[in-house]
């Protein structure tokens, strides 16, 4: 019947053409974005991509063979009116054995580099530089234990130095992943997980939480700033010095007062290393992220907003607007007047390391 024949041709056009077009378009347009896995800047991510590429091409070969055979069979062996039933072939043991062994061999070939790469990624390098990573709903805390300071949502590390991320979580399970630097590991309350990687190129890298962790899972991003080794030491020294104190009688100095005053009471939740109020109160609380040098961070609210003075203003006024459900309360005009908020924003924006180049 002519209908069947036409239909057979349509199988080819209908199934193959859109898929192929889509695949080609995809290969052309995909990759090279801030969180793409195909551009790697550390040994860890590179070994993952290097494992993927041969498996990908093997997959393409199998894909083409199977789909080709499928479509070929549907076209070639179609029914024509009056055809008698074809030979009732029940099977062939030799063929079966062959195509049981063939995939087994292919998989064994894939398995060998898989196992060696698993071992590579799990082995601790010599003298790594260790940073503790703690996942919170919904932000990241980074603790430099030996150097004695903490930071939030932006991790700074030196290039060309093996890094050990020693990770856990404070509440629920999260997952820490920066595609261009390393493969992900979950951060789990009550347990420790580890990532080892050696960043190869200074720069700013993107990452976020990949394990669903509740309402604001989408806004649990982080950045990793990779410094030149010397520059990193300067950055560490800056952090150890604590936040710079504003000049007296400036807007920033007024902002610092607002930070501690009852209406705002930012210090009830946030720490700023080295910031002391006139009555001797210190900002050491650890409910929210440590704000020392917050002015140099590229993001606010773990990626809910870009860090600009305007956004910082909006964020403090109503953090529930851009990140509903997060623990930070909104601050009305009664709590922080417009002038006070302007001063507070000026103060926080001024908190930047002096020695290190922020980028």
């Amino acid at each position, binding site marked *: 019947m002519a209908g069947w024949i036409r239909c057979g041709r349509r199988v080819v056009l*209908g199934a193959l053409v*859109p898929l192929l077009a*889509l695949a080609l378009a*995809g290969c052309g*347009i995909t990759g090279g*974005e*801030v969180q*793409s*896995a195909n551009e790697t800047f550390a040994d860890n*991510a590179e070994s*993952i991509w290097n494992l*993927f590429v041969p*498996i990908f091409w093997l*997959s393409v070969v*199998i*894909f083409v063979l*199977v789909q080709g055979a*499928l479509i070929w*069979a*549907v076209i070639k*062996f*179609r*029914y024509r009116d009056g*055809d008698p*039933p*074809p030979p*009732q*072939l029940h*099977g*062939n043991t030799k063929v*079966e054995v062959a*195509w*049981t062994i063939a*995939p*087994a061999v292919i*998989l064994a070939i894939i*398995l060998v580099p898989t196992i060696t*790469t*698993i071992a590579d*990624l799990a082995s601790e390098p010599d003298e790594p530089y260790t940073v503790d990573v703690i996942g919170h709903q919904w932000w990241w805390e980074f603790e430099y234990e030996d150097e004695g300071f903490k930071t939030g949502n932006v991790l700074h590390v030196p290039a060309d130095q093996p890094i050990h991320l020693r990770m856990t979580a404070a509440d*629920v*399970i999260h*997952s820490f*992943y920066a*595609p261009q630097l*390393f493969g*992900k*590991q*979950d951060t*789990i309350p*009550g*347990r420790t997980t*580890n990532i080892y990687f050696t960043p190869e190129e200074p720069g700013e890298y993107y990452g976020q939480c990949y394990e*669903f962790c*509740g309402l604001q*899972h*989408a*806004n649990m991003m982080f950045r990793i700033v990779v410094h030149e080794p010397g520059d990193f030491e300067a950055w560490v020294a800056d952090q150890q010095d604590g936040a710079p104190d504003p000049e007296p009688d400036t807007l920033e100095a007024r902002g610092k007062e607002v930070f501690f005053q009852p209406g705002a009471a930012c210090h009830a939740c946030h720490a700023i290393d080295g910031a002391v109020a006139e009555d001797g109160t210190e900002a050491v609380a650890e409910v929210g992220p440590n704000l020392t040098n917050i002015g140099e961070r590229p993001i606010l609210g773990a*990626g809910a907003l870009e860090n600009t003075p305007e956004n910082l203003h909006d964020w403090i006024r109503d953090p529930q607007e851009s990140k*509903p459900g997060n623990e930070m309360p909104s601050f009305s005009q009664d709590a922080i007047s417009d002038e006070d908020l302007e001063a507070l924003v000026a103060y926080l924006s001024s908190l930047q390391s002096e020695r290190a180049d922020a980028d």
Partner: protein
Amino acid sequence: MAQAVAAREEQLDRWAVIWDWITTSDHKKIGLLYFWTSLAFFFVGGFLALGVRSQLVVPNSAMMSPEVYNQFFTMHALVMIFLALMPMSAAFFNFIIPLQIGARDVAFPRLNSFSYWVYLFGGLLLCSGFLFGAAPDIGWTGYTSLSSSQYTPGMSGDFYVMGLQVLGFSTVAAGLNFFVTIVNMRAPGMSLMRMPAFVWMSLVTFVLILLAFPALAIALFALMMDRNFDTVFFSAADGSVVMWQHLFWIFGHPEVYILILPAFGIISEVLPTFSRKPLFGYSFVVFSGITIAFLGFGVWVHHMFTVGMGPIPNMVFATTTMLIAIPTGVKILNWLATLWGGSIRLTTAMLFAVAFVGMFTIGGISGVMHAAVPIDYWQHDTYFIVAHLHYVLFGGTMFGLIAGIYYWFPKMFGRYMNEAMGKWHFWLTLIGFNLTFFPMHFLGVDGMPRRIYTYPSDFGWELWNLVATIGAYLLGFATLLLVINLIKSIRAGQAAPNDPWDARTLEWTTTSPPQKHNFDRTPQVRARDDFWDQKYNRTGEDAEAEGPEEHIHLPPGSYIPLLVAFGLMLLGAGIIFTLWLSVIGGIILTVGLFAWAFEPND
């Protein structure tokens, strides 16, 4: 006056019909109940999916709040897996298995009715969370400690726990029932290796259900205790947060095969019928199915490669996961060989079955990619996984089930479906499906995490999200065609004979739709593909030989299974609302079980 009487009589008649459906223990009617209910839930799940895709069509979308979005994606998965795909398989288990093995009904007809009502009540319980603004929003995997009462206080977590717990009873009861049916009630001469492939794959599914669902029941029970009675099974301090994942995936991975094996079975019927050839390598297909089931219990850690169990467990489970690709590959090659040298009629059922092989292969290939553990360190919880799982569950299971609908519709309703509309349905589905899910691979390469309600505009994710959403709407439209076709064909489709496809198995020997007692005389089976053998290989007296005349006993209907199912649902609902409901439910359940045990059965 006379009119009023007639109207009342008609009304009485209508009540009698409804009462008949409510109390039925006929496997065919229960199969139809499963069919329509699962189709309705499929639309609920599809609506939720379109909600998800609509939210993600542009970056920084404000269409939905994160709370609503999280409810949508969680309920989409729960509805599709537990209320649409599994029950639609159950519709075919019910309608087709007894016919294919030459039986008059299932082993335990009232238990069968109980399974359906528990499914319906459990499904409504699970979905009723939306009425209280408290649908589950913790992902279908319900990971602790997010699902604990500390981080998910209120009813939403309880709807998840109790909804699934109640539904589990339905699944296990059905699994047990059909396992016994297949083992004990096959027609004389139907040895295990003469069973149709669909019956074989279903049998393997029931073994998986019976072994896997208890793990889920235990996990849910412990989580219920943690949430409501302050136990510490999954506490980070005194228990183990990760233990939930082990229990969940010891259930959850076999669950994947519970979803796909019936579809394997369906296309193992459709491909031979429309190729007019027997299934190539029948015994290899059967034993690879058994192997998949066996290995399916040894691969659960591949869902947990990133929890940091260390290199050795990851190496072991990478190996077992790759092993399971071997029997799966064998199946695909056998289906290809079934087509090869055949005489292929591209009916709508056949188109879906052929597309199943192609689409499932894509899902299988991407599955091997993240079996390579370090690649999973990248792809895990990205959209690459979303693409993979939909190629398996939609391109696989759903395509298989749709093939089953077009294939068995003439048997179920005595009419053909409209083939022209079916072709439209097929091509729009195939294109819409690939447009939706293929770009998700690219989003995975670009690092888009799954389960996020919003994304920034400068990450390069806009284009493929837009394409995926367009595809999803196309897919939604295509599915409307299926329903229109179903309704139109039931009303006015071309009448179908007993054997409309020149098929091979016993269900095609009886009337379309089958008479209440299925077969006038019990079939005597003398070959695999017995019906084909009858039609083409036997002559004269030989062909006419049938079983002796016999007394046909059909069990009466009963309302008690519905009552017990309702009591069971109340028992679960009490944990969500107030424990008094549980007490009432417990009483109904207990009284109902006694009534069940002593109900006269003749």
